[in-house]
């Protein structure tokens, strides 16, 4: 059984079709990359899968269960976590507080939750900043906090929405390492990314969308030489014969 | 039957005046995305300014517009510039700052009680009121003259304001800023100055409303309170930011108030107004003509 199955998913907002008949699957333990030009519908797809709004058509199955109408908080408790493209830390609270909120997804006791939160921070080499106010962190640290929070909910499937945006090359490499480490510990990862180097290095498979439709799917190598993909990113003239 | 028509007409006339009193609120909201809780107090200030202008100069009430409009515009402009702007700057990210609500409520407290301190609690009406008790006869019906003129002023003002925002350069700059302040500032528009002007215009419109009220409504320090709540109700009914909506919302309230007491006690009419307000808030918060925001 695949951990995530998306079948013929359509998302329409009024007259605009943001996602059109999207099919994709993710195997347990895989890293699936989702790329496409800006406005292709990637974040919208994430939002549907994460329960922010139900899809107009189609089915989403998480661990075999139909989750079309489920809410983000219920999905989180079932093991589906996500980060946001525009990071949303609880700015007035400390890093530890932020992660503890996530940890409460698996426990009711504060001492437990804090312990789990600390453990997560240690995994991400973030413990030294635990008392800092999250609103005062650098962008790289905020992205790490975003992941830490989601991680504290003990997810089986983690949706990462452009976590590398705004990071310097060194930070990008560090983030790639972190994400690979997460996969090694058993978490399935579904990642949207624009930084090609990162997503090529990370993904087992890649899905490419343009204008809401899937235009290619395959290994990083296959995608890099796929004519449709090249055309989508660089324009019609660049498709090789 | 005759009473019904008379009530209906009065309801429409008074309602349009209500709409005029609420128009400043909707302008300020439309541009600054702020609900000004000091709205009623601004109306009160307008009434006192009008009162003193008329009493000291002996002008005909409606001519006092010449004094009231610029004074109120300046007052609003300064209020926004000195007190509210710092909060805007501090809360730039937040789209609808709650702190501003709190601050405007503070302004309400201050204005109302300063008026109490300086002018005393007594109810005032202008002496030598050329419009006192004047009525028009329409067949067997009596229509209050000042209310009729108020209606005219309300419609004319609504038209003028609408025209200003749609067709003048400044008006369009203001609308641009309200839609997207960053984009507007990239186009060379100083957003804070726009806010000041918009607040000034909203306050000036409240001044016009005050003038229409002066001939038949008492002036006292807390006169604004009733119009404050009513203003919110009207503006939500008609749609925050919509000029025409303010007039329509006002007329709805005016009609309920004038026709209602024929069929039920005045209390229940008031309760109905509140009930309608809550209904609109729950069902269609953007009101009849408001923009469909993510409210």
């Amino acid at each position, binding site marked *: 059984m695949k951990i995530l199955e998306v079948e013929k998913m359509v998302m329409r907002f009024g007259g605009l079709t943001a996602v059109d008949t999207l099919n994709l699957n993710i195997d347990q333990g895989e890293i699936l990359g989702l790329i496409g030009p800006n406005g292709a519908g990637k974040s919208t797809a994430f939002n549907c899968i994460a329960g922010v709004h139900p899809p107009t058509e189609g089915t989403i199955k998480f661990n075999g269960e139909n989750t079309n109408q489920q809410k983000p908080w219920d999905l989180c*408790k079932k093991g589906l976590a996500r980060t946001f493209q525009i990071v949303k830390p609880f700015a007035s609270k400390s890093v530890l507080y932020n992660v503890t909120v996530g940890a409460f997804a698996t426990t009711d006791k504060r001492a437990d939750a804090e312990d789990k939160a600390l453990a997560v921070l240690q995994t991400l080499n973030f413990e030294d900043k635990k008392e800092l106010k999250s609103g005062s962190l650098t962008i790289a640290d905020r992205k790490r906090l975003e992941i830490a929070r989601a991680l504290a909910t003990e997810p089986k499937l983690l949706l990462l929405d452009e976590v590398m945006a705004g990071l310097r090359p060194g930070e990008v490499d560090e983030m790639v390492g972190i994400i690979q480490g997460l996969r090694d510990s058993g978490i399935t990862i579904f990642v949207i990314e624009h930084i090609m180097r990162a997503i090529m290095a990370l993904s087992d498979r890649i899905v490419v969308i343009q204008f809401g439709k899937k235009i290619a799917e395959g290994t990083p190598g296959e995608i890099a030489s796929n004519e449709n993909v090249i055309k989508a990113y660089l324009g019609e003239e660049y498709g090789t014969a | 039957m005759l009473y019904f028509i008379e009530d209906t007409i009065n309801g429409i006339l008074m309602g349009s005046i209500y709409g005029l009193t609420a128009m400043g609120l909707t302008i300020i909201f439309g541009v600054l995305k702020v609900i000004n809780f000091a709205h009623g107090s601004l109306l009160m200030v307008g009434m006192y300014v009008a009162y003193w202008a008329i009493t000291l100069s002996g002008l005909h009430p409606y001519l006092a517009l010449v004094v009231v409009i610029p004074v109120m515009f300046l007052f609003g402009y300064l209020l926004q510039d000195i007190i509210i702007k710092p909060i805007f700057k501090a809360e730039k990210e937040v789209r609808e700052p709650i702190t501003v609500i709190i601050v405007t409520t503070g302004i309400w*407290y201050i204005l109302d009680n300063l008026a109490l301190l300086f002018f005393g609690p007594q109810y005032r009406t202008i002496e030598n009121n050329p419009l006192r008790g004047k009525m028009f006869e329409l067949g067997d019906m009596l229509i209050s003259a000042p209310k009729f003129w108020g209606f005219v002023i309300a419609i004319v003002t609504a038209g003028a304001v609408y025209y200003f925002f749609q067709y003048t350069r400044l008006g369009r700059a203001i609308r641009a800023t309200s839609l997207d302040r960053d984009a507007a500032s990239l186009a060379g528009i100083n957003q804070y100055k726009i806010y000041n002007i918009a607040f000034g215009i909203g306050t000036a419109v409240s001044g016009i409303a005050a003038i229409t009220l002066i001939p038949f409504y008492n002036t006292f320090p807390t006169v604004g309170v009733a119009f404050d709540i009513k203003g919110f109700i009207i503006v939500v009914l008609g749609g925050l930011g919509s000029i025409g909506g303010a007039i329509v919302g006002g007329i709805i309230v005016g009609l309920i108030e004038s026709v209602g007491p024929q069929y039920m006690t005045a209390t229940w009419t008031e309760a109905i107004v509140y009930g309608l307000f809550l209904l609109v808030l729950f069902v269609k918060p953007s009101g009849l003509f408001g923009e469909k925001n993510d409210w």
Partner: protein
Amino acid sequence: MTGNESLAPSDNPSGGSAGHSSVSGSNTGHQGVSPRKKIEVFSLLGVVLIAFGLPLIMTSPTYLHIVILIFFYAYLTTSWNMVGGFAGVLPLGHAVFVGIGAYTSTILSLQYGISPWLGMIVGGVIAMGTGVLIGLPTFKMRGAYFALATIAFAEGVRVMVENLNFLGPFNLNGPRGLQIPPVNFGFANFMFQGKEPYYYIILIMLIGVILLTWFISRSKLGYYLNAGGEEPEAAMALGVNVARAKLIAMAMSSFLTALAGTFYAQFSLFIHPKSIISLDLSFEIAFIALIGGRGSIAGPLLGALLLRPVSDFSRIYFGDVFPGLHLVIFGVVLILVMIYQPRGIQEPLTRVYNRLINRLTKEGQAKEAS
């Protein structure tokens, strides 16, 4: 929820950092009590002792009356804080719950001879139900709309109570309000001759509500409320049912606020809509909490302790010559605080307090070292 091996809690980070733990700090794996904590606990106990001992020193009933009202407001603002502070919304109609509590217990005792204590609970339950009903549709609204809705609701109720003499079998007496005859003294009847019993009752209620707030802030509900209030989308993605958390907070807040309504009725022996379901009261509660610092535990309390005396004294001494001056001062303070200290005056005060404690702790540590 399957744990992932590498994320299993590692050996407990031992040793709470003495002298480093902040006021709200975690004390995981803590050995022994830090000197700082000792000072804090002792000073708190000291304050509580003084509060309990006050009536023995302050015998003037006028002053006692003032202090009772200060505690009353502190109770109200702390209860309000559960929704207005922790849940991150701005309720401006909370007086309606005070009214529900007051009217419920008063009617039950006047018409049916039921003990006000029981009436208090009934009032609380009714208020709680009302609060949840209001909250259900309104919590979805944006900030200002929510505020307006609470105002509209409170005013709607006030208008109705003011104009109804009877609500079914219950005598509301419209705008004239209800008077409670000072007879049948005794605890069971919540009726006392001196002010002292009332003082202790409100003091205990206040301490109770502060403790409750403190517990909540350190609990899952507290974390969830804070998260939902600050970034609802992120909170929802982390497993927080924001709407439900807010409703729970509202239920508690409205219940507790109603209890104070009964207290007020029994204390002042007269309630009428204009005083007890008034917008003035609603606003005063909200603004004292805001000036003090909403979202914090000490904020509403500090706000009441500082602002009520100012308000009372300016009314007593200036009321004739300068009517309404206290409200002007109030408004000015409100604006200044919002511009310069939007988190309330508790923020700078807490900083001073922390510095004081640190200095004391260092001295203590230096003494031990030498």
